[in-house]
């Protein structure tokens, strides 16, 4: 295959390209010169390397996880006893709002997207994401949004309206001060960031896969990434609309959510949950991708029923858009409509059930190795299935009307989100840690923290089912004694502390391993996808030669020998684009150089967004610096692209 390509597209000799004549250290030096980011702080800021961006995304998300976790601990301390007055009502409301918002918008979605940004190009065998500067811009926008929220919180302007921000409580009359505006604008920031990443990833997956990696040969994780990215693209505009309406209600007195003037408070709920429910799957589907990868590697076999797993992902992604009303069963919408949403909500468990079957069957037929990543997967199944089944319960209208907005729901979605997303994420971090850092995480510490997290989690969240059934509503800063809530809450609080300690241990493990961990080979777990084909950590250009794939598990089927394709330029950043379906080489395409303008554009956007919290004119005036930054960003390159025959 390689030679055929070379023969057909013999490039002019003048331009240096990777190939049999240019390989090894020499190639490494020249590619590094082309792909490495500039030195210094400015260079660090200018980086458009997906690995830098992905890593920063993940680190930032973990920082927000820590912050959100600290708030969770604070809440659990407050709730450990009835009538506790450790934290006041107003502060508690801020805390749970910050916790939910941070976890959903600043941790869960970004961390998944960070993993995707880091892994996708490696897994599909390309050198960069499709739009590196856009991805960099997305990172800075996300960080700016997170900082906005947290700085505001520290300045006593933290939102206190819940992470769902229902108007009229978040509206101009009852949402006092700038707190809800901060929240809404933070959402805008993360929307922009998530959309930018989603667009970039979608293009990367559809056009930059290694030659031969047809859609049917893509790793499941890449499939999950594709599905979630498309979901982001379809769902985020809805919440963007909702938050813009809210800001405009609050800032210039429009009446979108004012029932007195023919607006509707429920409009928000529809728009929000049309985004909010898919968001859960945007968090969950990448996690199933992790699980599929880990299960395959640690069972030492390909996943059973690959097409069904892929179809399940796609089906979940589609069904996710038909369920939003199950968050609104108590609002008094017509009963007949409810039945439809009950059926739709329950039907989501079919694809998920099939995936679980596939994982178990894969383990059954393979030879599972009980290492930390797989432990997390097992914990995931044990935990997530409970969350899934309680999900089936609350899809039923008569049950939901009792359980809605109680601690039962809190238990349910923590089972789904921690059990279903964080456990796989921790497994995935352990799994890909050596790839990213070149060092293994400590297995022993990993197991200790695993057991603490797993057991602590059950202790923290299982009793919440009980407190919910005993009549404890969500979002209360305290509860009276004598309702039977004392014991479950105390258990939850203890469990919460255990989880917090365990996460701390996990982070310590990470930090210690970065410095002192065992050195990792290129493929420490004997995985089969392409990221294991390059060094640990990967070089700036990812692959010296673009690999060629002819099966679902290239590294196992190739027995270490991976076919490659030659001919990309080495002193220009160049990518190989392939066709959407069959991944046959299509064209060579230049890739963007590092640039400080994405970060500057993000700063300009920040000025505009933050300004528009205070004045509608900021939307107008804020466009000026943004326009300048974007103009510079897209300024035509001085160098004419060399005219060459393209691969086609």
């Amino acid at each position, binding site marked *: 295959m390689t030679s055929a390509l070379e023969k057909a597209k013999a490039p002019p000799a003048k331009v240096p390209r990777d190939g049999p004549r240019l390989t090894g250290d020499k190639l490494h030096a020249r590619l590094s010169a082309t792909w490495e980011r500039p030195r210094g702080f400015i260079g660090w800021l200018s980086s458009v390397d997906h690995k830098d961006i992905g890593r920063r995304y993940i680190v930032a998300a973990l920082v927000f996880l820590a912050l959100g976790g600290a708030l969770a601990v604070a809440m659990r301390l407050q709730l450990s006893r009835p009538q506790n007055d450790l934290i006041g009502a107003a502060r508690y409301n801020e805390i749970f709002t910050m916790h939910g918002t941070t976890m959903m918008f600043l941790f869960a979605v970004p961390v998944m997207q960070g993993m995707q940004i880091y892994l996708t190009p490696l897994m599909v065998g390309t050198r960069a994401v499709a739009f590196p500067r856009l991805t960099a811009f997305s990172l800075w926008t996300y960080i700016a949004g997170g900082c906005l929220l947290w700085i505001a919180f520290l300045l006593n*302007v933290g939102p206190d309206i819940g992470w769902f921000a229902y108007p009229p409580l978040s509206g101009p*009359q009852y949402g006092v001060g700038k707190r809800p505006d901060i929240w809404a604008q933070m959402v805008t920031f993360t929307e922009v960031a998530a959309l930018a990443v989603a667009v970039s990833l979608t293009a990367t997956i559809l056009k930059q896969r290694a030659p031969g990696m047809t859609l049917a040969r893509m790793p499941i994780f890449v499939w999950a990434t594709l599905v979630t990215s498309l979901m982001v693209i379809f769902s985020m505009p809805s919440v963007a609309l909702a938050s813009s309406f809210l800001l405009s209600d*609050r800032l210039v007195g429009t*009446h979108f959510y004012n029932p007195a003037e023919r607006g509707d408070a429920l409009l928000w709920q529809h728009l929000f949950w049309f985004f909010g429910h898919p968001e859960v799957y945007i968090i969950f589907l990448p996690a199933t991708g992790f699980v599929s990868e880990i299960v395959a590697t640690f069972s030492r076999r390909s996943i059973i029923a690959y097409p069904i797993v892929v179809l399940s992902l796609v089906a979940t992604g589609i069904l996710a858009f038909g369920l939003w009303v199950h968050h609104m069963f108590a609002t008094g919408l017509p009963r007949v409509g409810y039945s439809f949403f009950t059926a739709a909500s329950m039907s989501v468990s079919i694809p998920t059930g099939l995936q679980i079957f596939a994982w178990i069957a894969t383990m059954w037929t393979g030879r599972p190795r009980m290492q930390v990543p797989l432990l997390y997967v097992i914990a995931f199944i044990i935990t997530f299935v409970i969350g899934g089944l309680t999900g089936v319960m609350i899809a039923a209208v008569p049950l939901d009307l009792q359980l809605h907005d109680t601690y039962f729901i809190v238990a349910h979605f923590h089972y789904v989100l921690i059990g279903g997303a964080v456990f796989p994420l921790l497994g995935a971090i352990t799994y890909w840690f050596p790839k990213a850092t070149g060092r293994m995480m400590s297995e022993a510490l990993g197991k200790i923290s695993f057991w603490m997290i797993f057991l602590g989690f059950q202790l923290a969240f299982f009793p919440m089912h009980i407190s919910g059934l005993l009549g404890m509503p969500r979002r209360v800063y305290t509860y009276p004694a004598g309702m039977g809530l004392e014991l479950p809450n105390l258990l939850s609080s203890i469990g919460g502390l255990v989880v917090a300690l365990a996460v701390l241990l996990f982070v310590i493990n990470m930090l210690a391993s970065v410095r002192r961990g065992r050195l990792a080979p290129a493929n420490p777990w004997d995985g089969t996808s392409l990221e294991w084909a390059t060094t640990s950590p990967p070089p700036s250009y990812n692959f010296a030669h673009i690999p060629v794939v002819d099966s679902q598990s290239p590294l196992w089927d190739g027995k270490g020998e991976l076919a490659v394709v030659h001919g990309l330029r080495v002193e220009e950043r160049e990518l190989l684009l392939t066709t959407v379906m069959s991944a046959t080489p299509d064209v060579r395409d230049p890739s963007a150089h590092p640039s400080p303008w994405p970060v500057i554009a993000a700063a300009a956007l920040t000025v505009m967004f933050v300004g528009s919290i205070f004045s509608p004119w900021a939307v107008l005036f804020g466009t000026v610096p943004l326009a300048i930054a974007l103009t510079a960003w897209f300024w035509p390159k001085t160098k004419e692209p060399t005219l060459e025959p393209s691969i086609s």
Partner: protein
Amino acid sequence: MSSRFRNSCAILAVAVLLGACDREERQSRAKPLGETVPAAASPDTIYPGDPSRARYVDARGASYEGNAFAIAQGQQLYNWMNCVGCHAHGGGGMGPALMDEKWRYGGRIDQIAASIYQGRPNGMPAWRSKLTEDQIWQIAAYVRSLSGQVRKDAVSARADSVSNTPPQTQTVRQPVRPADSDQQ
């Protein structure tokens, strides 16, 4: 980074911090007030002798003026206590307009609080002993916002009711002009 730059950064940060604190501070309870009452403020008038000595400005107004929580509470009380029945949403009716530049009995927050507390002769009832002083100050803070006297980031654009005045976040600040008493 020069030390001057650092200092100015620090000052800016503190200013932002304090600004935010002032605007968003939520006092559910007034500080102990002792025997002083808002009544001490009086409408602008002629002071024989040295006017600077005679003018009394109640300092408590500062902690209510421009405070988002106080204004929001004041807005609710303005409706509950039927201020809205006479003064509408600032346009007036049985009582004078509150969103214009004319102030019969003074337009400072302490003067407004005093008018609410004491009542005024042409039909303004006295709310002393019906409302707490804290509540009176809150209403005064909201009344100040009707004519655009307070910072725009502390007011709400509209209420969840029939659309009435232009968004308060867009209200142009009216000059505070004392008008003659409405005696006929």
